C-alpha cells in the first residue's frame, strides 16, 4: 500500500511550486520516503524530497579582520613565534597578539593607511598616541586603564624580544624608544610622568555575605543526580579555598591525590604562576567529590558514554557531558540559576574568591589569607579582594559595646545599628 502511494505524493509536490509547497506536505513526504526507501527505487524525473541540514553548533571565532586583518606584520609574526618559544602561556600569548594587532590598527586609523610596527618605533609621537588611545578598535567604546596597561606590557615585551632586529634599524635600545614615546604623551607631574587615557580601573566587585554563599550552595545542591553533587562540590571548593574558577574548572584527574588519611589534595594551576597550588580538601568535600565521581561514572555507563572520571589519572574532573571540561559559560549559567532561585543579586564565580578573602581576613592576619588563597603578597589582596561589609563592621562594634556595657535603652533604635549606618553613609 505504501509503495503504491508514494508516486502520487511526489507528483503532487512536482506540480506545485517548490517555494510555495506546504511544509506539512514535505514532512509527510519525507516520512513516507524514509519508510519506503527500502522497497522502492527512485523514479526518473523526480527530485529528492528536500531535507533540513543538520543544525551546526556555533563556535566563537575571533574577528581578526576587525583588529588588524588576517595578514600580520612580519615582525609581529616573528615576535609571536619567539614568544611561544619563551614559554608564554596561552592566555598571555593571545592577549599580546590581540594588543599588537590593535596597536597596528589604531596607528592605521590615525594615519589613514597601513602602518607597520617598525614604523611606529621610528615615530615615537605616533607610538605614544597609539599606546594611550582609549577608543576600542571594534566597538568604539572607551577602554579601561587595565587594557591600556596590557597594551604597554605587550609593546614592551615586543621591544624586548625583537631587540636584535629593532636595534639594527633604530640604532638605540627599543625599550628606551618606548619610554620616550610614553613621555611624549604623558603629563609631567612632580618627579615623574603620569599617563592619561582609559576609564578608571574597576577594582573588585560585589562580595556575597556568608549567608548568601550558604544559600546559593544549598540551591546548587538541590539539582538531582550527579549535577547537584557536582555543582555543590565545585562551588564549595571555590568558597572554601578561594581558587580561581578557571583554575578549578581545568582540574585534571591526575592532579588529584588521595592521602592515606582519607583527605584529598588537588593541584590547581592559577594564572600567572609557574607552580601549581596544593589545596587540601576537607573530609566533607572529599566525600562529596568521590560521590560525584561515582555518580557521574554510573550515569555515563547508563548513557553508554565511553568517558569516565578517574581520580589520579588524566582526564577532566568537572564534566557536563561526555566530551570535555565543564565550560565557563555553563558554570555561569548554573550559578545564575541558583542566584535567581534564592533571590540573590546575580553573582559571578569570582565573587566566591572575594568572599573567601573578605571572610578570612576578618579573623586571621592578611598574610595568612594570602598564603591560604595563593596570593603572592597582600597588595592585590587588599586592593581588589577584601571588601568588608559595613553591616558586619557595625555588628562587630555593637557586639563589642554590648560586651563592655549595658544594652541600649533607646526605644527607637534599641540596637543603635540604624543610627550608625546612617551616619557612616550620609
Amino acid at each position, binding site marked *: 500500500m505504501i509503495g503504491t502511494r508514494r508516486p502520487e505524493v511526489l507528483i503532487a509536490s512536482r506540480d506545485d511550486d517548490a517555494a510555495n509547497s506546504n511544509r506539512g506536505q514535505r514532512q509527510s513526504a519525507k516520512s513516507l520516503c524514509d519508510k519506503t526507501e527500502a522497497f522502492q527505487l527512485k523514479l526518473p524525473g523526480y527530485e529528492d524530497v528536500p531535507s533540513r541540514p543538520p543544525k551546526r553548533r556555533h563556535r566563537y571565532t575571533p574577528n581578526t579582520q576587525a583588529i588588524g586583518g588576517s595578514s600580520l606584520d612580519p615582525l609581529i609574526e616573528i615576535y609571536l613565534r619567539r614568544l611561544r618559544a*619563551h614559554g608564554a602561556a596561552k592566555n598571555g600569548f593571545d592577549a599580546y597578539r590581540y594588543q599588537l594587532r590593535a596597536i597596528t590598527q589604531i596607528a592605521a586609523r590615525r594615519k589613514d593607511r597601513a602602518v607597520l610596527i617598525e614604523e611606529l618605533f621610528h615615530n615615537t609621537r605616533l607610538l605614544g598616541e597609539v599606546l594611550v588611545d582609549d577608543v576600542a578598535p571594534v566597538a568604539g567604546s572607551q577602554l579601561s586603564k587595565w587594557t591600556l596597561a596590557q597594551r604597554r606590557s605587550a609593546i614592551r615585551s615586543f621591544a624586548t*624580544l625583537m631587540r*636584535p632586529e629593532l636595534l639594527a634599524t633604530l640604532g638605540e635600545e627599543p625599550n628606551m624608544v618606548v619610554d620616550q614615546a610614553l613621555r611624549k604623551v604623558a603629563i609631567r607631574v612632580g618627579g615623574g610622568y603620569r599617563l592619561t587615557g582609559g576609564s578608571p580601573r574597576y577594582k573588585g566587585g560585589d562580595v556575597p555575605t556568608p549567608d548568601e554563599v550558604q544559600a546559593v550552595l544549598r540551591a546548587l545542591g538541590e539539582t538531582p543526580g550527579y549535577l547537584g553533587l557536582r555543582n555543590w562540590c565545585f562551588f564549595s571548593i571555590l568558597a572554601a579555598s578561594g581558587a580561581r574558577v578557571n583554575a578549578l574548572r581545568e582540574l585534571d584527574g591526575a592532579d588529584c591525590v588521595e592521602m592515606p588519611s582519607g583527605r584529598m589534595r588537588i593541584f590547581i594551576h592559577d594564572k600567572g604562576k609557574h607552580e601549581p597550588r596544593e589545596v587540601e580538601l576537607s573530609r566533607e568535600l572529599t566525600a562529596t567529590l568521590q560521590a560525584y565521581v561515582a555518580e557521574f561514572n554510573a550515569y555515563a555507563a547508563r548513557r553508554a558514554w565511553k568517558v569516565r572520571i578517574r581520580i589520579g589519572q588524566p582526564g577532566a574532573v568537572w564534566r557536563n557531558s561526555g566530551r570535555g571540561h565543564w565550560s565557563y559559560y555553563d558554570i555561569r549559567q548554573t550559578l545564575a540559576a541558583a542566584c535567581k532561585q534564592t533571590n540573590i543579586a546575580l553573582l559571578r564565580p569570582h565573587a566566591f574568591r572575594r568572599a573567601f578573602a573578605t571572610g578570612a581576613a576578618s579573623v586571621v592576619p592578611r598574610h595568612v589569607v594570602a598564603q591560604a588563597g595563593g596570593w603572592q603578597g597582600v597588595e592585590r589582596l587588599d586592593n581588589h579582594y577584601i571588601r568588608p561589609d559595613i553591616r558586619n563592621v557595625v555588628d562587630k562594634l555593637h557586639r563589642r559595646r554590648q560586651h563592655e556595657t549595658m544594652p541600649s535603652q533607646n526605644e527607637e533604635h534599641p540596637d543603635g545599628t540604624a543610627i550608625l549606618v546612617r551616619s557612616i553613609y550620609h
Partner: protein
Amino acid sequence: MEQLSLFDPFITDTSLMVRRGPLPEESECWLETFRAARVHDGAHPRSVAREVSQLRSLTREVWTGSNNDSVILLITEPHLVAHALCEPRRPVSRSTANTRFVAVQRFIQIVAPLVGRDSAHVVQALDDLLPVRRSVGWHTLGTVIAGSRTRVRRRGPTLEVEHLHALVDAAVENSTRGHAARDRALIALHCWSGLRPEEIVRLRWEELSVGRTSTNELRYAVTIRRAGREITLPILNPAIDALETLALERSGWIGLLAGTVFCAGYRLDRPLSYRAARDTVRLACRHAKIPIVEADELRAAFAYWLKSQGLSDHEVAIVLGLRMVRSVDRLLARHRQLNAQRRVREVLP
C-alpha cells in the same frame, strides 16, 4: 619596511634534522679540549659532561646542512647560535636553555683564542644578537633566552612526619631479596637526615662518626663534602637505628666499619646507583600507599618536622646543611600554605 628577523634564512631551512651520536672527529677533539680545560679549572666532572652534551645538541641545532658542521660554528656564526638560543626547534625548559647559554660562553672563552679569535669580541657579538630586557643592576645585562619555566613533571603532595615513619616501615615490607636492612637505612637517611640522594648513595662508613657528650650520651654525625666545603650533619634517631641494624648485618659497628654503606647486590665494592635508590623510594611509597614523591618532598617534610621541634630557620638550615636560609623558606613554603589553609578553614563558616 622589509625588515625581517635576522635569523629568517635559517628558519625556513627544512633540512635541519636533529641527529644523534657523536659529532665529527675534529669537533670531538675541540670538545675534549674544552672538557680538559674545564676540569683543570676545578669544575665538577658531571657539570662539565652536561655542558659538553649541551654543546653537542646546540651544534646540531645550528648545523646548516653543509659539510661544515663543526663545533667551531658556535664561535664563527654567532647569529646561528643566537637563533638556536632564541627559537629552539624543540621546546626546552628555562634551566636547559640557561645551561646551553653558559656552556656556549665558556666554550667561546676557552676555544676562541685557540682558533685565533678574540673571545670577548665573540661573546659581545652574541650578546648583541640576543633579546634584552631592561635591567637596573650593574651586574646584569638582562639577556633573555628561550625556555619555559613551567614544571614538566608533576609534584608529589606535601608530606608530614607520619608519612616519613610510614615510609621507613614500608621499606622493610618492600624488600624481597634480603636487602631489608639496606633499604630501610636508605629510606631512613632520605627521611631523617639532611643528606641529598646523591650523597646517600655515595656514603661510606668512614664518613660516619660517633661521639659522646659531657652527659655521656651518644651522638652520631656524618661528614661530607658539598659544593667544595666540608660539612658535618647530625643524624637523628630513626636513621641511627636503621644504620646500626645495617652495620650489625655487616658484622661491625658505626665508626669501625669501612667501605660503601649502600652496596648494589651482594658486592660490597660496588655502590648503589642513584636510579636504584630512587626506585627503592618509589617502591616504599607504593607500599606505604603514599603517592610517589621525590627526595625534595622528603627533605621538606624533614625540615617541617625540625621546625615543629622548635628549631629556628637558621638552625634548620644547619641540620640540612644549607648555606642560605632562603632555601629553608623555599622548602617550607608548601607546608606553610597548607597550614594557612587549615587555619582559615577552622574559622570560616
